[in-house]
């Protein structure tokens, strides 16, 4: 992979990180209402996956979906705008943090019902298959989501019909406040692919270049009609489940260990050892930081939706 491409990947990861830091700050200041589920620490997964996609591919994700939506290419300002509930937000303020949609870039919606988008992902993939577009669909969900019925039904059907869908399980060790062992009798979630005869693997979700490479392979399989893949990407969320969660349930030292494997640091390390200069790395980071700050200011200045706008877009006809 060319250095430029890798620098763009780094930039995207920085953008996601700064974006979430800003959300956190603004929420804590009470400037923004509603729940929020932040993504710091998991950036390598969605950035790596989406870097492996092509125009025309589609994506669905969860309420913890700021990262995946940005990684697909949604603009920073409109994404902020939606989370701020602004008229200029991606969804005119109707969706909010848990419901980001940018159809233009293939981001078909984040979903606040655990597991609900897995069957929907199949549908987008089915359409691509029927029309022979060669597109794939990337579907993000968490470890805890693998215990709900839709996971089972969706993976079964996807495998049966060889749908071009990539099931990306972001295993961040917790579902809300519950560690995996409290809810799930097996440790390796990729093993659940056996139930569906599905190509399945567990990967290091903090190594963005690995993620990209693995997903390129899986996408290639999917595009050529060989069916879906289940990818369990091991990662960690640096924050609590949502802004009201200080995460007291974490064992001592766990966060610190994962901070050492911060996906941004890991990529910077790779780039440095490949000869990229520290100033280049700093420049990328600062540019990203500024882009995020600018987008935030832009979006904050947008007007709130008019009250009557709440009646729009219930019906198409």
């Amino acid at each position, binding site marked *: 992979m060319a250095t430029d491409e890798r620098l763009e990947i780094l930039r995207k990861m920085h953008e996601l990180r700064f974006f979430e830091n800003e959300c956190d700050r603004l929420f804590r200041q009470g400037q923004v209402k509603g729940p929020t589920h932040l993504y710091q620490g998991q950036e390598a997964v969605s950035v790596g996956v989406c870097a492996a996609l092509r125009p025309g591919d*589609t994506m*669905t994700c969860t309420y913890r979906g700021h990262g995946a939506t940005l990684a697909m290419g949604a603009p920073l300002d409109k994404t902020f705008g939606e989370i701020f509930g602004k008229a200029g937000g*991606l*969804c*005119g303020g*109707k*969706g909010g943090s848990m*419901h980001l*949609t*940018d*159809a*233009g870039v293939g981001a*078909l*919606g984040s*979903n606040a*019902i655990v597991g*609900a*988008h*897995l*069957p*929907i*992902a*199949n*549908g*987008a*993939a*089915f*359409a*691509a298959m*029927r*029309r022979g577009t060669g597109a794939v*669909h990337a579907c993000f969900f968490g470890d805890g989501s693998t215990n709900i*019925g*839709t996971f089972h*039904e*969706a993976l*079964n*059907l996807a495998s*049966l*019909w060889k749908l071009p869908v990539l099931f990306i399980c972001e295993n961040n060790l917790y579902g809300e406040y519950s560690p995996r062992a409290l809810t799930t009798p097996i440790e390796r979630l990729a093993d659940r692919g056996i139930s569906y005869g599905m190509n399945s693997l567990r990967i290091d979700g903090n190594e963005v270049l690995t993620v990209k490479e693995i997903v390129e392979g899986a996408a290639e399989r999917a595009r050529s009609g060989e069916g879906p893949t289940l990818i369990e990407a091991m990662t960690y969320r640096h924050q609590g489940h949502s802004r009201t969660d200080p995460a007291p349930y974490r064992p001592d030292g766990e966060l610190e260990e994962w901070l050492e494997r911060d996906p941004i640091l890991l990529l910077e390390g790779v780039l440095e050892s490949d000869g990229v200069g520290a100033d280049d790395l700093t420049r990328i980071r600062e540019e990203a930081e500024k882009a995020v700050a600018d987008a935030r200011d832009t979006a904050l200045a947008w007007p709130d939706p008019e009250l009557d706008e709440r009646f*729009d*877009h*219930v*019906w*198409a*006809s």
Partner: protein
Amino acid sequence: MAEVTYKEAVNRALADALAADPDVFVFGEDIGAAGGVFKTTAGLQERFGRDRVLDTPISEQAILGLALGAATQGMRPVAELMFADFAGVAFDQIVNQLAKYRYMSNGQISVPVTIRLAQGIGGGFAAQHSQSVENWFLNVVGLKIVVPATPADAYGLLRAAIADEDPVLFFEHKGLLNDKGQLEDDPQPVEIGRAAVVRQGSDVTIVASQLMRARALEAAERLAAESISVEVIDPVTLVPMDIATIGAGLERTNNLVVVQESSAGGSWGATLIARLIGEYFDSFDSPPLLLAGDETPIPFAHQLEQAWPPSADRIVDAVRGLLGAAAPAAG
């Protein structure tokens, strides 16, 4: 013009929609190779192939989610829930996903999904396979709800549902599948959202859909012999409800009876009455009456099941009572 059954009308609508638009596909459990448990999809897979008429696993959530996802890409999925009661296992996909998808995206994404559901009492299927579940969805904004009673409506509304940009729940009544009726040789879609005045009358307006429509008509015939003139209106669509047509009927007769198969709580009949009483308060000579299914789950035994929903007898008695009571006030 030809005589066809309700079932044949559904089948023909599916075939015509499949033939007319490559984005249409039809899928569900045992609907392909076997042609469906009620044979409404018989012959479609032979004609249109396994790519467009698909059998699925027993996975109702996966079925409806796939419909939604494909619709986001502009396809026009027609998904079948074999028995309407099974909507329970995929309820989230209908009420939290399908109904809200367009709105949450601020209109970026339309989801032109049609869900076909076979509902209703009468087959000895007992509590979990006999319900008319149209009312489960009334409090959820974003779904059109269609309840055809005749072959012509079944055909025309199914074509309209498939062509509609919004999600439509299309309820086929199991007790009507073999009913016969006329269908044009070149039948056209029937507009969603229009009630039909199916019998003229001046003393009382009865609103009744699906299985209850024929019972209302039977009651009307019998009452005519007593010189009571009954108007019968079939709402045909429950959401959006055609208040204007029904309100106009009420203004002609000043007496209202709503007859529905399901129980009263949270029903379309109750909703209709609450709305009409608000908007047409002065048009009522007598209290509006809601004749509904019993306040119990549906029992299995034949006689118990038969006794459960309103009968023509009950309708006749109710109208007599109503007009008897109303007469003094009107006189």
